[in-house]
């Protein structure tokens, strides 16, 4: 069903008001038609008593609504290829219909049929380790291989890695839930990723085009990720990370939460390890996730293990297995001079054993066990 331009414009204006909480928006749209609601807010006319906001909020809403034009908003949605959907509409995701805090309106780009696939959320910290990003990319790729769609949030780190993993694989597709308008890439470095996602994948937001990211949008965004997932995998999370909010939302909705175990010494895995302690299922391989979805994993051929050439290189590689190491630490630990260690490290990086992250050396993870 295609909503007519007047309704699209009114929804885009209402959803883009800064003082309009998602909860209030849902309540108002429950009792008023969008065009009518916008008219009343603009003119100061009475809203239904059970949704009438406080006088000061009302005044702010009026001021904010009076500065934007509904028709221009509708044109903007059409220009950037954003579709609008509301509960009851054919494009509205079934997974959200029964949600207690379902979004009253969704703006999306791409192919909404992606949500008909099996769906796994892959989330984690923005400041991820190389190993964490490799795991996320791997999960994305291997889940997509099994035909599963992967839901994440387009943030830096784990989110980006999982999206890219899906894009480099298939047939499963990617779903990106944003905390800003679906026409904006945040972080900006993900512009190219966003452009690729709108081609055949899906980008969803509760905010109309042009809405900048705000800190308070992201916990709301996380609830949508949780609600859209059948299984939620936390790859890496610090002790107080946003992905733990997603995990909590998932638990409230009865979505299975899984976590990738990390070293107890790694702060980047602290949150994920806490989830495991509290009863989340561990992800030791992609098959663990597929098993929860009752999908038979595709058969893969394992590549043979290699070893680095020199004994010094082996010592250095082993030293990096416990977590990122600086060159100083490697030199002190190995007892060799700076020059030979630097050469061995350079060769390890060149041959793909180690990754150099701004001076921190980490073991490159080639893939999860099948």
């Amino acid at each position, binding site marked *: 069903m295609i909503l007519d331009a007047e309704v699209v414009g009114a929804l885009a204006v209402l959803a883009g008001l800064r003082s309009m909480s998602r909860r209030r928006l849902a309540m108002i749209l429950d009792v008023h038609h969008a065009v009518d609601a916008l008219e009343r807010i603009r003119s100061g006319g009475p809203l239904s008593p059970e949704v009438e906001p406080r006088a000061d909020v009302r005044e702010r809403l009026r001021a904010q609504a009076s500065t934007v034009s509904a028709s221009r908003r509708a044109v903007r949605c059409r220009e950037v290829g954003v579709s609008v959907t509301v509960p009851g509409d054919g494009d509205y995701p079934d997974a959200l219909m029964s949600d207690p805090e379902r979004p009253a309106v969704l703006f999306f780009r791409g192919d909404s049929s992606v949500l008909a696939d099996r769906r796994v959320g892959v989330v984690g*910290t*923005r*400041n*991820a*380790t*190389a190993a*964490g990003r490799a795991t996320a990319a791997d999960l994305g790729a291997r889940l997509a291989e099994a035909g599963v769609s992967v839901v994440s949030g387009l943030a*830096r780190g784990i989110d980006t890695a999982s999206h890219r993993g899906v894009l480099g694989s298939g047939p499963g597709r990617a779903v990106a839930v944003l905390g800003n308008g679906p026409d904006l890439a945040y*972080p900006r470095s993900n512009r190219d990723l966003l452009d690729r996602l709108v081609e055949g994948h899906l980008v969803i937001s509760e905010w109309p085009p042009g809405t900048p990211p705000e800190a308070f949008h992201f916990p709301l965004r996380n609830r949508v990720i949780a609600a859209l997932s059948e299984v939620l995998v936390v790859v*890496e999370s*610090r002790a107080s990370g946003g992905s733990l909010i997603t995990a909590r939302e998932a638990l409230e909705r009865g979505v299975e939460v899984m976590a990738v175990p990390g070293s107890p010494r*790694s*702060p*980047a*895995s602290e949150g994920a390890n806490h989830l495991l302690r509290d009863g989340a299922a561990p992800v030791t391989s992609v098959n663990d996730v597929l098993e929860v979805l009752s999908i038979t994993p595709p058969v893969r051929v394992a590549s043979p293990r290699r070893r680095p050439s020199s004994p010094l290189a082996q010592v250095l590689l082993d030293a990096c297995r416990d977590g*990122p190491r*600086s*060159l*100083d*630490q490697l*030199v*002190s630990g190995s007892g060799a*001079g*700076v*020059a*030979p260690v*630097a*050469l061995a*490290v*350079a060769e390890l990086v*060149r041959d793909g054993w180690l990754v*150099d*992250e*701004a*001076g*921190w050396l*980490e073991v490159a993870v080639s893939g999860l066990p099948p």
Partner: protein
Amino acid sequence: MIASVCSASVLGARGHRVMVEVHVGPGLPSFTMLGLPDESCREARDRVRAAVLSSGLSWPDRRVTVNLAPPTHRKSGSGLDLAIAVGVLAATEQLEPESLSGRAFAGELGLDGSVRAVAGVAPMVGVDPGLEWVVPSACVGEASAVSRGEVRSVASLGELVEVFAGRAVWSRAADAPVGGRAEALAPVDDLADVRGQPVARLALEVAAAGGHHLLFVGSPGAGKTMLARRLPGLLPDLDHETGLEVTMVQSAAGVGSPGLVVRPPFRAPHHTSSSAALVGGGSHMVRPGEISLAHGGVLFLDEMGQFAPAVLDTLREALETGRVSVGRVNHHVSMPARFQLVGATNPCPCGEAGAPGVCACDERSRHRYLSRLSGPLLDRFDLRVRVSRPEVGDLLSGERGESSAEVASRVARARARAIESRGMLNADLDGEALDRWARLDEAATSLLRDEMERGRLTGRGYHRVRRVARTLADLAGCESASVNGDLVAAALSMRSVFDRRVVS
């Protein structure tokens, strides 16, 4: 009656000859000063008169005119007091006019007739080192360092008159130690105090041996300042000429030492410093700034990202030319400023070294933090080294590292090797010289080719890496004109802090 006395004033780090001409003639009693004295210099009028009277001498009840020739440049400060007083005494025949010939005077007068120290005696003496200079006792050391003639110390105007009248002899100032303040007063920070941190230690050694500018990047408490303070201890003594320049600059800035400076200075201006404090300045009297005070030694900028960008910008001229010039409406002063720059910065706002999974900063704020340093200035650093907090084991082991003396002897040999075969320190080698002196062996070539093919090494970075590798080779006592893979890898690892993706 007329008398003419030789003295000097200081502008920047250089002295300018000033002839103090005093005319005492008929007319209403008055005292006029000509020749562009500034406010601080004009005050000499009352000081000189009081000093003469309190020394038991008489002040002429006539018209006194003092001319400070040449009248084209502004004279400032109190250093001309003594010369003016001597001129008045000579013009009123309280002194033998012959006693002025072949002599020059510098010093400030107290109201009681005592002669006090002033800043800038060394550059004043430098105007004509052949003269017999009469200076305040406290300044004999720096004056002797510059002078080629006799230096006389005087404690009061009365004493001077007695000596010239033949009723007393010159007092002997205690012979100034020719050794330099750095060595005499401050115990040298020893490298042995640094535990662990092998890469940072090596970087210091390389910086000392090759004259490379060095940037430390590390968390608070990692020991960046401690490391930087140890660089002067690794550098060789200053040669005579540089030592003279340093003595002059320090004297002009009023941080004079008791003799010829022989140890490289270490200056660490705070990041709130203004550009005038760093470069030098002042409206009338141009004073050497921190970068000139660091001439011949080490300029350490801690928290480099916190310096105002405009202030950092002023460093560039000095880094290029080894001098800094300060322009004012009516004069233009050039001061020496050839220093070795050591910078230090946190890797990000939170300081947690950007360790994956530990650092709380997002990439954008980290990028913004470091981009304050980016550009032409960052480009000057051949060495950019990450400093991490020392390992607990290293701290507790009680095992002291190699001492500064051992490292300094290696540094001296490497510097000698560089000067002997190439005529310059490695930091000054250009592309052509590098092709000749830092040929790459096979392993090194493949390493660098690989880095370049991956787009992680730019052309400029290529030169810098070879320069540092050449210094490493010199330190290792390697005589051949080529450098091997080990050294190139070590050089690469010492400039990879910011963005391993592109080592510029």
